[in-house]
């Protein structure tokens, strides 16, 4: 206890440690969490009222210095207590293989770094499918990752293995992990971009790598589209077992894993990936990637959709999209059996991934972004489903459909607000528009209207600490939010 006090007493400069917490939240990986919910549960700066009244354009920047590189949705450290102060930092990877770090409050470049290509295999040319560069990175989730009030506890999952101890770096430096197009895992000091350890080859060079995910000192990713001749597979890079990471993989064997969020991690550590041979949902063991089970529906599942996982009645359920236009609920306890439930027809074709959030009373919602005609929306829409039980059966009831959206990417949500992106279309010069919607009714609270001047990247969105980040095809990162005087 005394040691703990000393550590707290050592914190920064002004007051007790707890007084310094509660500042800002992390968005540590694609869709915010291992389960790929796209839900920021605790951001107090987003409310329906503040979004409706105060939301506005804040800043934009071209981190690549004018180069045309696709920007990944940023991951964020809400509070990095670094050598230059308390910073909220947004880490933006791009397809040139650079990582750009922004001071989010001030719209100032904090540092950026272009990673050298180190593989023996020559660097493959960039194509529309095989973009190279860097996937959305992931943060080492320790220390101030979750300041403020405790997160709602996930329901206990029987049989979940105890997590391995992680280094206690609460007041130490923080690391960010990226895998570059040369297949090297880079552990970078978030404070200044310096290498924390030497790059290590973990994946094939020139592979198309999904967003990274991380749990219990294992980094997970998927590769797809046969880029660089690499196998389409799920990968596990164990960084905790020895000085040199150990790598395991599970190959798709003729299939693909092309959902935006890559591998999804259940609350018990199970790895879920959609695609592979037979276009099924695979459940794999943590770290070793041994097949635990599969979930299939007639007609198959969409390999380009990342499923979403959440706790339901003391176990995980997985919601995913079928090729038949419905969402399906898989029960992690009986994965190979019948679906636990399904949705009404979504309409159009679900794309990219799913989003899920819960109301304070536990009412669970699932959101799908669908391309093509969805009811009156001729180009596409976000469709919201409410999880209900009727007659002992679980179902996803279609509750609202957004306005017409062009190529919507998976939504992000917080505090009763859903942010939906109409990506537009670069080929027809249709520009991107962001919409803030009431999460329970779909009513429009705000939109960016004609402020964005290019089509959106089809890479996703990030929300954190009162700000929404959207990248466009002209290599510009746009930031909207609730202004904060500084």
């Amino acid at each position, binding site marked *: 206890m*005394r040691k703990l*006090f*000393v550590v*707290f*007493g*050592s*914190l*920064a*400069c*002004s*007051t*007790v440690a707890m*007084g*310094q917490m*509660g*500042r*800002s939240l992390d968005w540590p990986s694609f869709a915010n969490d291992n389960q790929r919910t796209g839900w920021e549960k605790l951001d107090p700066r987003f409310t329906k009222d503040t979004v409706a009244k105060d939301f506005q354009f804040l800043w934009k920047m071209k981190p690549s210095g004018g180069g045309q590189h696709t920007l990944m949705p940023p991951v964020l450290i809400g*509070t990095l*207590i*670094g*050598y*230059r*102060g*308390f*910073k*909220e930092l947004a880490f933006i990877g791009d397809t040139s293989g650079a990582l750009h770090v922004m*001071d989010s*409050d*001030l719209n100032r470049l904090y540092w950026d770094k272009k990673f050298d290509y180190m593989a023996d295999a020559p660097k493959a040319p960039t194509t529309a499918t095989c973009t190279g560069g860097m996937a959305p990175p992931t943060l080492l989730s320790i220390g101030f990752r979750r300041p403020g009030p405790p997160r709602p506890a996930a329901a206990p999952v029987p049989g979940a293995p105890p997590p391995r101890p992680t280094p206690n*770096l609460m*007041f*130490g*430096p*923080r690391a960010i992990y990226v895998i570059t197009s040369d297949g090297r895992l880079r552990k970078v*000091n978030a*404070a*200044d971009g*310096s290498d924390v350890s030497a790059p290590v080859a973990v994946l094939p060079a020139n592979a198309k790598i999904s967003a990274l995910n991380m749990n219990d000192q294992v980094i997970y990713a998927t590769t797809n589209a046969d880029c660089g001749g690499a196998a389409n597979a799920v990968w596990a890079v164990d960084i905790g077992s020895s000085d040199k990471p150990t790598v395991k993989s599970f190959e798709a064997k003729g299939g693909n894993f092309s959902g935006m969020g890559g591998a999804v991690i259940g609350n018990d550590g199970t790895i879920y990936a959609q695609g592979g041979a037979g276009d099924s949902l695979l459940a794999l063991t943590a770290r070793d990637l041994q097949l635990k089970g599969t979930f299939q529906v007639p007609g198959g599942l969409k390999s380009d959709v990342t499923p979403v996982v959440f706790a339901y009645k003391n176990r995980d359920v997985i919601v995913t999209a079928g090729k038949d236009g419905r969402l399906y609920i898989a029960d992690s306890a009986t994965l190979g059996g019948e679906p636990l439930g399904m949705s009404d027809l979504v309409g159009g074709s679900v794309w990219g991934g799913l989003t899920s959030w819960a109301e304070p009373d536990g009412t669970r919602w699932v959101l799908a972004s669908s391309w093509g005609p969805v009811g009156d929306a001729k180009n596409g829409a976000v469709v919201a489903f409410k999880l209900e039980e009727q007659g002992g059966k679980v179902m996803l009831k279609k509750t609202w459909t957004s306005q017409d959206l062009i190529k919507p990417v998976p939504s992000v949500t917080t505090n009763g607000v859903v942010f939906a992106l109409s990506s537009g279309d670069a080929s027809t010069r249709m520009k991107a528009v962001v919409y803030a919607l009431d999460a329970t009714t779909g009513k429009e609270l705000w939109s960016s209207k004609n402020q964005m001047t290019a089509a959106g990247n089809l890479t996703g969105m990030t929300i954190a600490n009162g700000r929404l980040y959207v990248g466009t095809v002209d290599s510009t990162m746009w930031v909207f939010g609730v202004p*904060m*005087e*500084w």
Partner: protein
Amino acid sequence: MEKRSTLITLCAGLTMLFTATWAAEWPTDGGDPQRTGWQKNESILTKANVKGMKLLWSLKLDNLPREMHSLLPPVIVENVPTGSGPKEIAVVAGSGDNLYGIDAASGKLLWKKHYNYTSEKEPRLGGPLCPGGLVSTPTIGLPKANGARTVYSISGDGMMHFLNVADGEDVEPPAPFMPANGKAYSLNLVNNVLYSTTAQGCGGNPNLLYSFDLATKKVTTYNPKGGGLWGRSGAAIGFDGTVYAPTGDANYDPAEDRLGNLLVATTADLKFKDYYAPSNILFLWKRDLDLQVTPAVFKWKGNEYVVASSKECRVWLMDSKSLGGADHRTPVYRTPLMCNEDVNFAEAGVWGSMATWENAGGTRYVLTGFWGPVHPQFKPGISHGAVTRGAVVAHKMEEKNGKVVLTPAWISRNMDQAEPPVIANGVVYAYGSGESNVQATPELGLGANSSAIRIKNSHPAVIYALDGDTGKELWNSGDAMKSFVHFGGLSVNNGRVYLGTFDSTIYAFGLPGR
């Protein structure tokens, strides 16, 4: 008869001369309860002669530094009756729970008092922020009928002590004041009531504004539910007894009485009275730019004003009648940023306390020392070279278009972590503390905030004498001092400028033979 008349005249003349020459005291941190840092009665040191200042004496004390803390600013009173006649005595507190009485003229140690730790709580070190021990500058009361003076101080076990300035003996037994192992800031004394503040939650104690009634020994507290109240000179007291203190890093939610990152005012009996919360308070909290500077209170053209600052590195000018106006967010004037463009919580900004004075022509100045590089957009009319490590800035009080404003007057030469200045007879005394304020590095994160690392990376302090109207350097102490200063401070009295360093050495500079 004629002889008698001549004698009387001579005595009167000597008395007048004595009064004119020896009429200054520095009985409390910042010189007065308003924490102006202004020695109004200095007559020995002038702009014209300070260039001749030398080291008059230095005295190595046996104080044990705790973490980075060592000696606190001397408090000084004169004509103290002692067994060897009246003396000017400087009382210096040391972090090792020590108090020293020093003959100001000779630099000889007159007495030492060590406070034995009496609390049942184990004495503890808690990193640079929580050193334990005696870290609050004492204060000295007015003379009693017999001329005796009492110095009040808080020991590391939280007891209030009452010592005779003449000999360091207890005037009365110690009395409970605050919990042990807390971090108290400078004492202030007004109308027989002592005030202090605490911060950093040291010892597991709450961060409070404290008062101690000398007549009743009653302790009163006020909790703004903000972060620590860590203005280095404690609370400033207005001319009407209002108590002003900055609250550190914490949430601002007035509806829940949570008053973090602002300047709070209470009545003399510590009842909430008013506050000023900067309009960008959310940013200040988020970036750890909390208000940690003891304000200064002064009168100008019939009104009472309060000036404050923070790590953000700007100055707020407030009317004491309503600190932030009706919404508590609108000061009389807010200056642009003087420094800290990089928004650093540790190595930049204003730290410690404010200062203010008025020259013979009636020009009122507000002074701040700051750490780090000057802000590139801050360009006062008079400057003295590139500022990369810190400087002192003077603003003038002016009326423009019917509004009171602070106009930048000058910025000093570069100083290595410029600390709060003091002013005497038109001369501003400032110092670069030389301390390493690096609290985080890329390699170690906040693990860099260790006393061992910071002490190793610190450099000796240097005092500067500046022209109060232009900031021009008139003198500096060169390499006379051999160590740095952490949370110490300057005192100036009767031709001597004092500063204590980390190695527990107290230095006095002045004009030899004066």
